[in-house]
């Protein structure tokens, strides 16, 4: 690397760090505000709290914010959706990518349209009700799956097309039935794209507040983003509580992110979208 390039790189690096303030400042604001008293919190300054209310604030938040329960619910729902979406979409996409013909094309378009239409709340509510899945986390998982399978399929199909058919042939010759072929040979090859799809599903499900709001009657099953919303409804202008709640809600995700972030981004970057 030449000297000029190195100098340029340094400059760029500095610039990017400076720009990242745009990201850090809101974070800092949240942290600092959560330690202040209510009045000072409402001023939204990047100042140190004049009185530290950390203990009282967080105590209230823990008591009223159902943090742990919300976290457990979020994990259950997200994990369940992840498994369901990836499994269904992988199988579906494999079929679509390999089988030619009108039926296959039709399937592709049929699912693709699903990316465009938002769900219809009342009719879906009735479906869940009819199946006795109202107010269950399983019901929510099914809804998320219904919505996200198209997206996962979109990503998968392009990638599968880059896996040469010879692999299938080789496996078949070797005596694999189609199911074993898929599970043992093909699916492992899809690891990078599975990562990408998994991340997309994770972020969509974890952060969604609309669907749990509508289909989970019982407050005890509410997921974390919903609790933020409910908390906000109650503590309308006590920004210290609201931001503290946001902090606690985001913390687990942030920790997971910090630990796995290289994984995550590398997964996305290696699961390259080839269209």
């Amino acid at each position: 690397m030449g000297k000029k390039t190195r100098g340029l790189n340094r400059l760029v690096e500095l610039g990017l760090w400076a720009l990242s303030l745009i990201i850090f400042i809101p974070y800092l604001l949240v942290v600092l505000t959560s330690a202040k008293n209510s009045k000072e919190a409402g001023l939204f300054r990047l100042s140190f709290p004049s009185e530290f209310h950390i203990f009282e604030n967080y105590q209230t938040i823990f008591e009223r914010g159902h943090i742990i329960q919300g976290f457990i619910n979020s994990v259950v729902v997200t994990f369940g959706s992840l498994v369901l979406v990836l499994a269904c979409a992988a199988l579906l996409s494999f079929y679509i990518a390999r089988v030619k013909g009108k039926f296959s094309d039709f399937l592709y378009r049929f699912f693709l349209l699903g990316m465009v239409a938002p769900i219809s709340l009342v009719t879906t509510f009735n479906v869940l009700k009819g199946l006795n899945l109202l107010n269950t986390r399983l019901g929510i998982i099914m809804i998320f799956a219904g919505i996200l399978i198209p997206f996962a399929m979109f990503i998968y199909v392009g990638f599968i097309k880059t896996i040469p058919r010879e692999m299938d042939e080789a496996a078949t010759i070797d005596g694999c039935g189609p199911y074993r072929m898929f599970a043992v040979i093909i699916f492992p090859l899809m690891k990078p794209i599975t990562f990408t799809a998994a991340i997309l599903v994770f972020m969509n499900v974890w952060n969604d507040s609309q669907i749990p709001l509508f289909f989970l009657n019982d407050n005890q099953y509410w997921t974390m983003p919903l609790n933020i919303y409910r908390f906000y409804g109650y503590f309308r202008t006590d920004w210290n509580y609201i931001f503290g709640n946001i902090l606690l809600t985001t913390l687990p995700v942030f920790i997971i992110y910090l630990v796995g972030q290289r994984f995550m981004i590398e997964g996305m970057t290696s699961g390259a979208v080839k269209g």
Partner: protein
Amino acid sequence: MSASIEARKLPLLRKRRPPIYYPVLFIVPALIVYLVFFAYPTLLGFYYSFTDWNSSNSDIRFVGLTQFVEAVKNPDFGIALRNTFIFAIVTTLGKNGLGIALAVLLTMGIRARSALRAVYFSPAILNIVAVGLIFQGLLNPHTGFLNNTLRSLNLDFLALGWISDPSLAIYAACLMEIWRATGISMAIYIAGIQNISKDYYEAAEIDGASMWKKFTHVTLPLLMPAITINVLLAVIYGARMFEGVYFLTQGGPGSSSEVLMTLVYKYMGQGLYGYSTAMNLILVVLIIVISMPLLSYMRKREVEG
């Protein structure tokens, strides 16, 4: 295993190719979930947009296109339509423009690139409600952080109304979404760039191309598949946006930042279900009409990597 396969493969292939059986069963799980929990209720919902279904009446009658006409006649429809377009286009441009720029910079071989990538990606893991609330704290014209800072730097004229200025509110929402989601586009573009073979850059280098030329003649064309996906997804997502706008401005002040989805939600809340689903259907048709041509246009410009 490989050696024996090779040995056995050769004679077989010369004779005939064994038919590979892709069981239709593969599509069944996805189909069931999709049909039961998504396609059926959504289509049913669309059917209702041709009826007068509302919360006061238990008989539902078919009324043809009446709801659609009413929807278009709504005083807020024009604004919502305009805002939906603005939001979709501005956020798409922002996320992708910035995303590509960041991706290029962060694949240049900077030392701290992993850390920087993580930083720029991080807002995407935040919950949208939380982001909306945080930005309320940032953009409040009188007590918000941004304006306070601008005023203390004597830049008062820059301390605009943001979320309480009818002409700016929707753009404030765009800003928030760009802040939140640029990292995702960035990550996908980084992937795309990393997939571009170094040979192309070396060839360009040999030809004496400047950095800019390298970017426009090598990077951009080979990124087209990624650009297609990102732009398409961004447009669709932007047009369908509800939570981002709702939790920042609630469609206000007044109705200046309403988008089609916030209207759908509002009228559902008022019990006008047929009306609400009609508006929903209008949005869907709009998205299809915009994204199909967009998709084929971009597909044409893709270059095989």
